[in-house]
């Protein structure tokens, strides 16, 4: 897949050979994506919802890495697979309280940190990695933020999706079926 395209807050890159894994960095990526990204806010807010009978809904952000191995970014793969897994687990635990838990798995969108890996800043053209991503995305383009909007409204609305819980919905232009 070329460059992994992620960097932690200290500027460390997360891609590499598994046997050369930096254990500290691995732990940090898990902490950021599972503890900060899911566990801690969900624990604190949902525990209050249960106490007060609030039938709330939780949306997690999964990834293509939740569903498909993206080579060389092991910690991120593990963390995002964990998001998919725990979305199901929490959905089951919270269902008796009327609380739903679902996730969205975005395909390849241009964000702050991956843009330079996918688009050459000088020429505005795709990098090699960007070209690989587009070639593997049947819709032939990157995702746009707008592509997520209707999905979020659908999943948070109990009138629209009140019987849906524990699912991870890909929004990926067909990447997972290619």
């Amino acid at each position, binding site marked *: 897949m070329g460059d992994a395209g*992620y960097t932690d807050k200290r500027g460390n890159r997360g891609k590499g050979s598994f046997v050369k894994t930096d254990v500290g960095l691995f732990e940090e990526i898990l902490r950021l994506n599972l503890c900060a990204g899911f566990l801690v806010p969900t*624990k604190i807010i949902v525990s209050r919802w249960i106490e007060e009978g609030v039938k*709330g809904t939780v949306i997690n952000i999964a990834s293509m890495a939740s569903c498909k191995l993206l080579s060389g970014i092991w910690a991120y793969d593990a963390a995002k697979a964990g998001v998919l897994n725990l979305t199901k687990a929490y959905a089951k635990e919270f269902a008796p309280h009327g609380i739903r838990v679902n996730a969205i798995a*975005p395909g390849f*969108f241009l*964000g702050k940190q991956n843009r330079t890996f996918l688009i050459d800043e000088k020429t505005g053209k795709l990098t090699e990695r960007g070209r690989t991503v587009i070639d593997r995305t049947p819709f032939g383009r990157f995702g746009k933020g707008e592509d997520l909007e209707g999905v979020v409204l*659908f999943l948070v609305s109990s009138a629209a999706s009140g019987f849906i819980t524990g699912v991870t919905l890909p929004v990926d232009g067909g990447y997972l079926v290619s």
Partner: protein
Amino acid sequence: MSYLEELFGLRGRRSVITGGGGVLAGFIAGASLRAGAGVSLWGRGRQSIDSAYNKLFALLEDTSKDDPQSRIHRFIVDTAVENDVNRAFKSTLREWGMPDILINAATGARDPL
């Protein structure tokens, strides 16, 4: 209320969005706001949270007569730290109200790769 508003409208709902300064979080927040929800942005970086907050503020001024400060809230917090999140939640409850939507958009890498 129209059929579509009944199905997808979020008036009266309140959404906490972690990682609220991120690009995709910004689209999620904007959609939630336009559908009628209140939005509380949580995140570590004051600059990115303030920037996202200001964009939502401008969006609301353009599209609604609602008071932006009753609909939009922000809190600087590291969501990996349990005590900090407890503090953020208590402040959010006091200053803004009980959320009934949690969008966990904080991530260690801007998703997706």
